[in-house]
């Protein structure tokens, strides 16, 4: 039983100002609900004010990032919360994603009779939990934040409840999500039990803490036995990695991706593809470089096979795919493969993790540009977005067509655009790390990916628009593009082009570990 003095020391370390951005988001989410309950007539004003407030929190996060010293690690809440410059960067990433998802939600919901306030509310809570997830320093906060994120995503995926695709997607995600959370929890519990065993060398006092668990797994007993070699530790670590693998959609845990990405409302697909995936990768890095680092030699072959399978599947599966939402989901698996390659390289090459962060930023910007176009062109049934909807887009809507070509081009990694530099950085890191076989697979994958991304661009640029309504629901919807939406799209496209030519800004910013 801890004494009063010990408790006071713990409570004194609970520095709530350290989580001010997350607190502000939580308060904003609650205030949004209250304001909507009291003044339902002023919903548009309230929602605009929410977005402005989110922008203010984003500005505050930028200030926090600029003030953070590289290499300095802050630990708060008795080890629950670990803040570095990289987690400050991820705060900016998630807040910017949240703003863009809110904007997409605005575009998506304006013609549909679906609840608006609740959408914004859940996006805010999901963003705050993502921000806490990447800062988690023990498995308690890690799991609670992850579950808040997952449950929020279930609701958002089922948001268009009149569409059976949306409900089907939510059910599939619920089942795979619950399954993967179960595996993850089982793995955590096994490691907890092992690290708390007083008869093993280097017993951890708080076995759920990442740093203490890592120290325990790295400890060696008097007879030369290594904790990391315990079969129980191996089973626990593998279960945890499988659980995280489901969240990032690495093969063979990608089964849920195509249906969920197709059925979810377009803004939610963007949230899944960008923010949720980035959170998963950051957490995977935290786990592999922290508590599971002593087991690297045992885990590496399995991770390498998963990376190769992810790269192969992600680039072969989208071939011949006509539904653009499924295309985004399946090609997202390919991007997950490239990111996994970067994470593997990060074990030996110290700047590789910065390359992964740069890739995440570039991928996010290009994806949001594409999703903005998709949200404007989505027909009544949102999950039914076909390549035919894009035929002759350049001629019908030069702005949407141009943004689409730049976004898709960056995702494909075509030279003058940012995606090329991001891919090149990861490949150079993999080359320096000596992962030659995986590098060959990744390069082949890039060649294949250009083929299916080009199919989309070809439909938008080269093919003639349909002359008349074919009568099967494939006639073009008429998008109404608000000035804000035009500004956002042009901004995303310009950033993609500029980062392809001049990267000093962002590479310097992410030049940290």
């Amino acid at each position: 039983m801890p004494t009063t003095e010990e408790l006071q020391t713990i409570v004194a370390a609970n520095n709530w100002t350290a989580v001010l951005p997350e607190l502000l988001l939580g308060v904003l989410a609650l205030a949004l609900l209250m304001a909507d309950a009291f003044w339902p007539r002023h919903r548009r004003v309230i929602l605009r004010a929410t977005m402005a407030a989110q922008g203010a929190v984003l500005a505050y996060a930028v200030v926090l990032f600029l003030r953070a010293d590289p290499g300095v690690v802050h630990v708060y809440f008795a080890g629950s919360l670990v803040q570095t410059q990289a987690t400050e960067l991820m705060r900016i990433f998630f807040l910017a994603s949240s703003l863009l998802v809110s904007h997409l939600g605005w575009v998506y919901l304006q013609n549909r009779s679906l609840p608006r306030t609740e959408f914004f509310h859940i996006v805010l809570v999901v963003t705050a939990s993502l921000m806490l997830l990447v800062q988690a320093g023990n498995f308690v906060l890690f799991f609670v934040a992850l579950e808040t994120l997952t449950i929020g995503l279930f609701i958002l995926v089922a948001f268009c409840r009149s569409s059976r695709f949306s409900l089907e997607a939510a059910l599939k995600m619920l089942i795979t999500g619950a399954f993967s959370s179960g595996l993850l929890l089982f793995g955590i519990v096994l490691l907890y039990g092992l690290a708390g065993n007083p008869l093993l060398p280097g017993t951890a006092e708080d076995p759920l803490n990442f740093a203490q668990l890592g120290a325990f797994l790295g400890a060696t007993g008097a007879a030369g036995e290594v904790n990391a070699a315990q079969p129980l530790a191996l089973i626990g670590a593998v279960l945890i990695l499988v659980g995280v693998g489901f969240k990032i959609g690495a093969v063979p845990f990608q089964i849920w991706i195509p249906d969920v990405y197709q059925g979810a409302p377009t803004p939610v697909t963007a949230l899944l593809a960008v923010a949720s995936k980035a959170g998963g990768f950051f957490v995977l890095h935290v786990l592999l470089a922290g508590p599971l680092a002593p087991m690297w030699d045992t885990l590496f072959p399995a991770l390498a096979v998963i990376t190769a399978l992810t790269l192969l599947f992600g680039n072969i599966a989208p071939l011949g795919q006509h539904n653009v939402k499924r295309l985004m989901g399946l090609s997202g698996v390919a991007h997950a493969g490239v990111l996994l390659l970067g994470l593997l390289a990060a074990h030996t090459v110290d700047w590789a993790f910065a390359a992964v962060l740069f890739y995440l930023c570039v991928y996010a910007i290009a994806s949001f540009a594409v999703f903005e176009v998709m949200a404007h062109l989505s027909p009544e049934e949102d999950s039914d977005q076909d390549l035919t909807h894009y035929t002759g887009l350049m001629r019908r809507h030069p702005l949407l067509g141009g943004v689409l070509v730049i976004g898709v081009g960056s995702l494909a990694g075509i030279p003058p655009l940012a995606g090329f530099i991001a891919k090149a950085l990861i490949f150079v890191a993999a080359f320096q790390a000596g992962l030659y076989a995986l590098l060959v697979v990744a390069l082949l994958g890039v060649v294949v990916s250009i083929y299916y991304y080009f199919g989309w661009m070809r439909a938008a640029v080269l093919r003639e628009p349909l002359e008349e309504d074919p009568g099967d629901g494939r006639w073009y919807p008429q998008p109404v593009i608000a000035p804000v939406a035009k500004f956002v799209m042009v901004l995303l496209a310009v950033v993609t082009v500029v980062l392809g030519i001049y990267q000093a800004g962002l590479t310097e910013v992410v030049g940290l570990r």
Partner: protein
Amino acid sequence: MTDWLFYFFAALAVVPALFVAVSRKPVNAAMNMILSLIGMAALLVLLEAFFLAVLLVLVYAGAIVVLFLFIIMLIDADSAPSSGVVTWLASALAFFLMVFTALTLTFGEWAVPFAERGDMAPAAVAYAFGVELFTRHILAFQVTGFLLLIAMIGVIVISRKMKEPAAEGGSAQ
């Protein structure tokens, strides 16, 4: 004596759990789940974790399984179709693999040394949980509040009927 009690309650926890997985009628699965939870609570009592045992019975057997039963009643679930031979074989294989792994981990060469119960931190009283929750894990505890809030809002959003957009004070833009 304690050993025999352990074996009895362990069987009570495991055998009904198996029936939860294989029974084709949802009601039977839910009732078996209660039995399994009672067995698990008794095991916790044997470990002197009384508070956890009470919580398990109150929250799971008392609230969650009753909720399951209500939902089963409301949606009037039919019994699931019987599964094919391949599923049975795969399940049996997985089951034996699991038992084998568990035995190897406990008694075989993969075993870790067993700690005496007296070495463990006592988790018998609510005080111990309260201290941990409100000092070390206060942040996670607060996040749980938001988790429950969005779960509640989610249920409302997905289940309620929406009015036409014109009735809500104009379109969004």
